[in-house]
């Protein structure tokens, strides 16, 4: 198992040498996935919240459908986006195939269901707690949406991180629509796949270690923002005790 030690050595030397090719790949990975997650948040959070708050015909069907879409196979999404963006496809004129934009589109499709479904769950729980109060204050469901999203913000960070995890780790879709073009659309995962196909398993694993480190850093950042559940203050405990008396 010298490959593992070689892999760690490769990862280490990649990191400390600040290899410019690696930096480019890492930056592209991050930018594509962050933009994809951002767009997915803008689309998915209101969608999930609306599913939680509004009652309409087919709501349960929509909820089930959304949950199932969380498991969309990336390769299938990649294929569909490829067929749409191909010059022979309906959106071919845009010339987006083999660009970072195409990769963002594929990732958005993969991430929106995750963020929307997790948001629905968070907001539905919160809506149960808030509904009477907000209605009493005079808020319409439409006004309640942003309130619930804002008040659920700490729980929603988990949804965002789940979406980011899916986006940054995904290889099947970005390989097809991005093409793994050096200096243009090569990201961490497709670079790893390429090194595997070259038989350079140590370098592939080294890149994998770098990817995992990045993933850990982003998650740590997310949890820094998210305070651990607010602990009852002294005053609160006293109030609880006295309330029981």
């Amino acid at each position, binding site marked *: 198992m010298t490959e593992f030690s070689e892999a760690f050595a490769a990862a280490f030397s990649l990191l400390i040498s600040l290899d410019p090719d690696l930096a480019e790949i890492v930056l592209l990975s991050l*930018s594509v996935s*962050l933009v994809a997650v951002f767009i997915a948040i803008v689309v998915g959070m209101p969608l999930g919240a609306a599913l939680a708050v509004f009652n309409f015909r087919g709501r349960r069907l929509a909820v089930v459908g959304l949950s199932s879409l969380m498991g969309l196979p990336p390769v299938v999404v990649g294929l569909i986006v490829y067929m749409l963006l*191909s010059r*022979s496809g309906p959106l071919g004129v845009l010339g987006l195939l*083999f660009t*970072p934009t195409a990769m963002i589109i594929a990732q958005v499709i993969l991430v929106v269901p995750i963020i929307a479904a997790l948001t629905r769950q968070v907001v539905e729980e919160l809506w149960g707690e808030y509904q009477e109060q907000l209605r009493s204050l005079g808020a319409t469901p439409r006004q309640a949406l942003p309130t619930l999203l804002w008040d659920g913000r700490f729980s929603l960070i988990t949804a965002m991180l789940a979406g980011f995890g899916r986006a940054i780790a995904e290889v099947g879709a970005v390989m097809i629509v991005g*093409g793994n073009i050096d200096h243009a659309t090569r990201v961490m995962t497709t670079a790893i796949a*390429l090194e595997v196909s070259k*038989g350079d*398993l140590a370098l592939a694993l080294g890149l994998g270690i770098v990817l995992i480190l990045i993933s850990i850093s982003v998650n740590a950042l997310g949890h820094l923002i998210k305070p651990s559940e607010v602990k009852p203050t002294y005053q609160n405990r006293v109030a609880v005790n006295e309330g029981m008396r």
Partner: protein
Amino acid sequence: MKTFSAMALLLSLSVLLLTGSARAEQPFITLASTTSTQNSGLFGYILPQFTELSGIEVRVVAVGTGQAIRLARNGDADVLLVHHRPSEQRFVAEQHGVDRRDVMYNDFVIVGPTADPAGIQGMDDAAAALKKLAAASTVFVSRGDDSGTHKKERGLWAAAEIDPTIASGGWYRETGSGMGATLNAASAMNGYALADRGTWMSFKNKGALTVMVEGDSRLFNPYGVILVNPVKHPHIKADAGRRFVDWITSAAGQDAIATFRIGGQPLFYPNPR
């Protein structure tokens, strides 16, 4: 508020990165090609020379020959560089491409475990070697992905008058993936495989694999370059694409190919004139 400012930071970072990645670009063409040329490192060596000369970046999408041809047929690439002459000729005959030219060649080799349970090492008749493999039922790992190498392999089986797909899943194993993945599988299963010499020589996970059969004229592996038909696909970058085709078949391009070496050995040979 802390959350809000952190989210604003994240957003501005993403936008910054996005605009950064969409920075002013030099003109480029998209080249649909095979994994064998990409994985061997040939493009990494010769393409910068073309870019420096012409100011045109070449973006390589490396897939199997079959898929590369489909990409080009859909108009998703400007130039095609593959290695299966019958498919290339059909591509031109069907008006998908124009001006097919020979670029370079090397050869295929049959690789296998040094223990050589089928006893084919040193043979120079590929078809006879495959016959022996089939008779011994030793593991043979096939690309199974409609690539140039896969098409060549099927041709060799036909020459040996054997249909190995009957044993598919048995000793005949189709990976359905690229050359590298197939060699990884062969290495792991101690099996035999057909590989192009370029990928083989640059492959780093050979394990116990070594070259068994080479030198058969049927193992000849010519590469051709084709410009995608601008009449059929008006959007393609015909001028830049033509410049690339002209360059790679010119003395300068051919020199670049000839001087690409791994461990002192050439992987590809310029086309004989």
